[in-house]
C-alpha cells in the first residue's frame, strides 16, 4: 500500500491590475524564497462600484495620460477590465513560471476592499501593489525597489514573527537594509519588543524605528520617509479592517506584503 506524504504549499495571492505598479509587486514575488513550495494566485478585481456608476449620465472619467474627460460607459469599462486582467495574467506568468511556482489567475468582480479581506483569510501571504498616484512617478535612480530598504512592522501579535522572517528573506535576496518598525500601544512595551525582534534578527544588521500609534496613516508616512522598497506586515485576518486595507491599497508608496 502506498503512503502519500502531503506537502503543505504556501499560498500566495498577488493583487494585480495596474501596469504601472504590477512590475514592482511581481518583483517582490521573485525575491520571495519560501522554504516550502509555494502556489501563486494572481487576483484581478473588477470594481463593481465603477460599473454601477457607468450608467449615471453625469459621471465622467478624467484620463491622467491624455488629460481628456469622457463619459464613463459600462461597455468600455468591461473591455478595460478584460484587457487589464489579460495583461496582469501575462505578467504573472512571466514572473512565476521561471521560478517554478504553480500559478493560477482569477478575475473577481465586487468591492475591492471586501474581496481582499475575504481573500486574506484564505492565504498565507498577500502582495498588494503600490498606489499609482496622480502622475507617473518621478525618476528614481536605479529604478524599482533596488537599493531601498525592506520595512517590517513588528508588534506583539503572533504573525509579526513570520512577517519579520519574510522581511529578512526579502532583505537578504535584495541585498538591502532591514528596517524594523516596533509598534506598541505604550512606549514601555517597546524595549521588550525590540529585544524580541533582535533575538529573531540575530547578527543581521537592522535599523529600528519605534511607533506608538496604531494608525495606518502614520505607518505609511514613516514608510515614505524611509523610502522603503517593501512593507511587510503580519496580520491576523480578523484584525485587518476595511479602512486599513483601503489605506494600504490606495496610499502605500511601495508594495505591501501581508503575512498571516
Amino acid at each position, binding site marked *: 500500500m502506498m503512503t502519500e506524504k502531503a506537502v503543505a504549499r504556501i499560498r500566495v495571492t498577488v493583487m494585480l491590475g*495596474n501596469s504601472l505598479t504590477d512590475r514592482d509587486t511581481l518583483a517582490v514575488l521573485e525575491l520571495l524564497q519560501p522554504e516550502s513550495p509555494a502556489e501563486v494566485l494572481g487576483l484581478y478585481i473588477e470594481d463593481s462600484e465603477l460599473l454601477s*456608476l*457607468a450608467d449615471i449620465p453625469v459621471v*465622467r472619467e*478624467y484620463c*491622467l495620460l491624455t488629460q481628456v*474627460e469622457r463619459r464613463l460607459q459600462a461597455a468600455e469599462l468591461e473591455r478595460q477590465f478584460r484587457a487589464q486582467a489579460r495583461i496582469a495574467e501575462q505578467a504573472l506568468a512571466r514572473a512565476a513560471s521561471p521560478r517554478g511556482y504553480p500559478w493560477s489567475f482569477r478575475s473577481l468582480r465586487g468591492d475591492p476592499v471586501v474581496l481582499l479581506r475575504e481573500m486574506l483569510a484564505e492565504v498565507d501571504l498577500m502582495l498588494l501593489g503600490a498606489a499609482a498616484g496622480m502622475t507617473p512617478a518621478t525618476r528614481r*535612480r536605479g529604478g524599482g525597489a533596488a*537599493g531601498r530598504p525592506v520595512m517590517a512592522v513588528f508588534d506583539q501579535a503572533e504573525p509579526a514573527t513570520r512577517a519579520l522572517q519574510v522581511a529578512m528573506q526579502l532583505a537578504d535576496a535584495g541585498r538591502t537594509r532591514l528596517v524594523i518598525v516596533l509598534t506598541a500601544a505604550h512606549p514601555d512595551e517597546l524595549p521588550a519588543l525590540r529585544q524580541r525582534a533582535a533575538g529573531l534578527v540575530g547578527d543581521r544588521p537592522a535599523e529600528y524605528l519605534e511607533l506608538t500609534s496604531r494608525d495606518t496613516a502614520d505607518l505609511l508616512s514613516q514608510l*515614505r520617509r524611509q523610502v522603503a522598497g517593501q512593507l511587510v506586515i503580519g496580520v491576523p485576518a480578523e484584525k485587518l479592517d476595511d479602512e486599513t486595507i483601503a489605506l494600504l491599497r490606495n496610499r502605500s508608496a511601495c508594495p505591501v506584503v501581508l503575512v498571516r
Partner: protein
Amino acid sequence: MQNIKPLSADELYRRCDPELLDFETTAELEALAEPLGQDRAVEAMQFGTEIQAEGYNLYVLGPQGSGRHTVIRRILAGKSAASRRADDWCYVNNFQDPSKPRALRLPPGEGVNLRKDIDQLIDESHTALTAAFESNEYHARQHAIEEELQEYQENSFERLQAYARERGIKVIQTSTGVVFAPIRDDKTISADEFKKLPKDKQEHIDAMIREVTAEFQHTMQSIPEEARKTRQKLRELDHEVSMLAVGSLINQLIQKYMSLPRVVAYLRDMQADIVENVDIFLKGSGNEGTIQAILSGGRSSGFEQGDSPAMRRYAVNVIVSNSGEEGAPVVFENHPTFPNLIGKIEHMSEMGTLITNFTLIRPGALHRANGGYLVIDAAKLLVQPFAWEGLKRALKSREIRTQSLGEVLSLISTVSLEPEPVPLNTKVFLVGDRLLYYLLQVYDPEFPELFKVAADFEDEFDRSPENSRLFARMLAMMASRDRLRPLDRAGTARLIEACVREAGDAEKISASLMNATDLVRESDFYAARSGRHVIGSEDVQQAIDARTHRASRIRDRLQEEILRGTLLIDTDGAVVGQVNALAIAQLGEFAFAHPSRVTARVALGSGEVVDIEREVELGGPLHSKGVLILSGYLSGRYVIDRPLSLSASLVFEQNYSGIEGDSASAAELCALLSALSALPLRQDLAITGSISQHGQIQAIGGVNEKIEGFFDICNRRGLSGTQGVLIPTANVKHLMLRNDVVEAVRAGQFSVYPVEDIDQCLSLLTGKEAGAAGEDGQFATGTVNALVRERLLAFAEQRHAFGSSDRNGDS
C-alpha cells in the same frame, strides 16, 4: 693611302692591377658604407633635410640600384638621431560634436600615458560615482526631493477630495485616471437612485461634477511644473555629487597635464560630460546599448567585451606613439595607397548598418612620419589612385585631413567623421627614376612647388686608383653585410673590371650597387661550389660567364641564323654598295650586338636620299636624322656648284623590327659612296659610328658589345686575320672588351680600327686612297672621292640634259 693602325691588345682592355690593391682579402678592409661618387646627391640631400622652408621636399632621382635607399637610410639615420623625438598624437571624443573628433598633441611617449591615466580615471570614477550614488546621503537627499513632489501631489489630491466632498462628489481612482461620482451619506449613488432624483437635483450634481473636474484640471496643470522643478533639483543634486566624486580625480590629471592647454581643455570638457552622463557609469560594465555607445563615441578597437560604455566614450585613440623611438621618425612606406598615406576611418557593421567613431580613425604614413621623414617610391605612389593628389594636398595645406576615399569622391553617403586635421611637418623623400622626375616637372605645376630639391644620383664615377681602393672597401662591406666570403685581390680586381665594363667606359666605374652586390653574391656561390673560402678572379669570371649564358639565348639564336645563312652577313670578300653595320639590342639587363647588312642603290634623280626604314616607319627619328645628314654631306663635299642629281636608297637588309639611333650613319654613307664610286667595300670589316655633315666620325654607344658581336660571327666562321671593326676614335676610351677578343687581337687574328673621318673609313673599306680635295676643290684622279664626284657630276649633267630637252620639248 692613309695608314690607319689598328689598336693594340692593351688598348682594348684596361686591366685593374691587383698590385694597386694593398690587401690580401677584403676581410682586412674597413667597410665603406657610403656609395661612391654620389657627392652631388648626398650634398643635395643634406641640404634638403636641413632647410626648413616650405616646399623643400626631395626627389631622389637616379638609376635603379645606385644606392639611393642606402644613402637615404644613412643620412636619415644621422638626422633622426640628432633630432628630437616627434610628438604623439591622439584622437579623443568631441563631446560637443561627436562627428568631429579632436586631435591632441602630446610630448613623445605621453600619448600612451594619457590613455593609461584616463583609463584609470574612468575606472576610479566608476568606483567613486557608484559609491557616491549608492550612499545613504545621496539617497536621503534624492528621496527628500522626490518626497517633496510626492507630498505636493498628495496634498493636492487630498485638497481636491475635500473640495469634491464639500460638493457631494467622490473622487475614485481607476487604473487610467479618476472618476467623479455623486455621493449620498458618503456612499456613491446608483444609477437607479440618480434617475429618481428630480431634474434640478441631477443638474446640480452635473454642475458640481463639472466644477470638481475643472478644479482637478487646474490642479493637474500645476503638477508637471512641480515635477520639472523636482527633476531640476535632482539634476543639480546629481551634478553636485558627480563633481564631488570625480572632481578631485580629474583635477589631479589637470595638474599633471597643466602644460598642455588642449589636454586640459579636453579634461574639463570630459568632467562636464561625465557629470551630464553619470548614468553610463552606474549602469554597470555590460555591452548594452552598443549602437548608442558607439554613436556617442564608443571605443571601437575591438569593442572589447567588458569595456564599459564609459570606457568607450572616454577612450583615447593613440594614433601615433613615439614612446619607444630614439629621435625623429623615419618611415619607409612601401605601399603608398591613399589610406596608407593619409590614414583612414574604418567602419563596423552593426545590425546591417555601417557605423564609426573616433576610435576607428587609423593613422597613415604621414601621421607616423610627422615631425620626421617619409620615404616613398615615386612610381608606386603615382600608380595608386588619388595617393599623389592626397599627398600633395597634405603637403600644400601642411595638415593631414583624414578622410575615407569614398568620402573624398562622394561615393558613399554613410555617416562618417570629420576628424580635426593634424598639423603636418614632415620632410618627404620621393625616390624615382629620372624620366618620372622630368615628366612631373613638365606636367604637374604643383610638383616644383612641393619638391624643390632634386638629389641626382650618378650612373658612374671616375676610375682612379683611389676610387678603385674605395670600391674594394665597398665590396668588403657588401660581403660582410651579406655574410659572404671575402674577395682576394685578383677577385676584387676582376670585379672592379666587371663594374667598369658595366659602365661602358674604361675610365669609369658603374655606380650600380645592385649589379656589384649581385655579382659578389653569385661569385660567392661559385666559390662555395668550388670549396674555396675566398672569392677569387676565377669565381668572378665564372659568375659573369654564367650570367651571360643565362641571358644570351636570343643572341645565340641570332648568331646561329647568321651562320646558317638565313640572315645574310658576309665576313669576307668585297661588294659594291654593301657594308656591315652593327646594331645593338637590349633585352632586359643583357645587351648584345650583331652585324646588320646595309646596302645602297643610286640612280639619276632630284637629289634625294631615301631612307627605306623611315619610309616604312621602321626607323626612329635619330636614325632618320643620320640619313638626312648624308644629303648635306654629299652636296657640300662633292658638288657644291651643281644640283645634287641623284636618287639614292638606303636599307638595313632583313630588318623587320625597327631601328633607332644614328650609329649606323657612317656605314650608310660608306655604302652610298661605294655605290656612287662603284668601288666594292670589304665585307670582312664592320663599321660603327655616327657621321657629321663634315664627314667626322662621332662617338656611339655600346662599342664593346658591337665589336664583340662582329667578332663572334667571324670567330665562329674562323678568323681570317683580316677581319675587324672600325670604331670612332672617341670610343677608344670606352673599350673593355672580352678576353677572347683581346687575345685574338693580340694574336693578329682580329683588328679594331679607330677612325676619325669618313675618308679613313673609305680607305680601309675600299683599300684605295679616299682622296683629299686640292685647292681647286678637285680630288686626285682615281681616288674614291674623285670617282664619287665624277659620278655626281655625270648625274648633274644628265639631269641638266634632261631638263633642257624637257624645256625644248615644251617650247
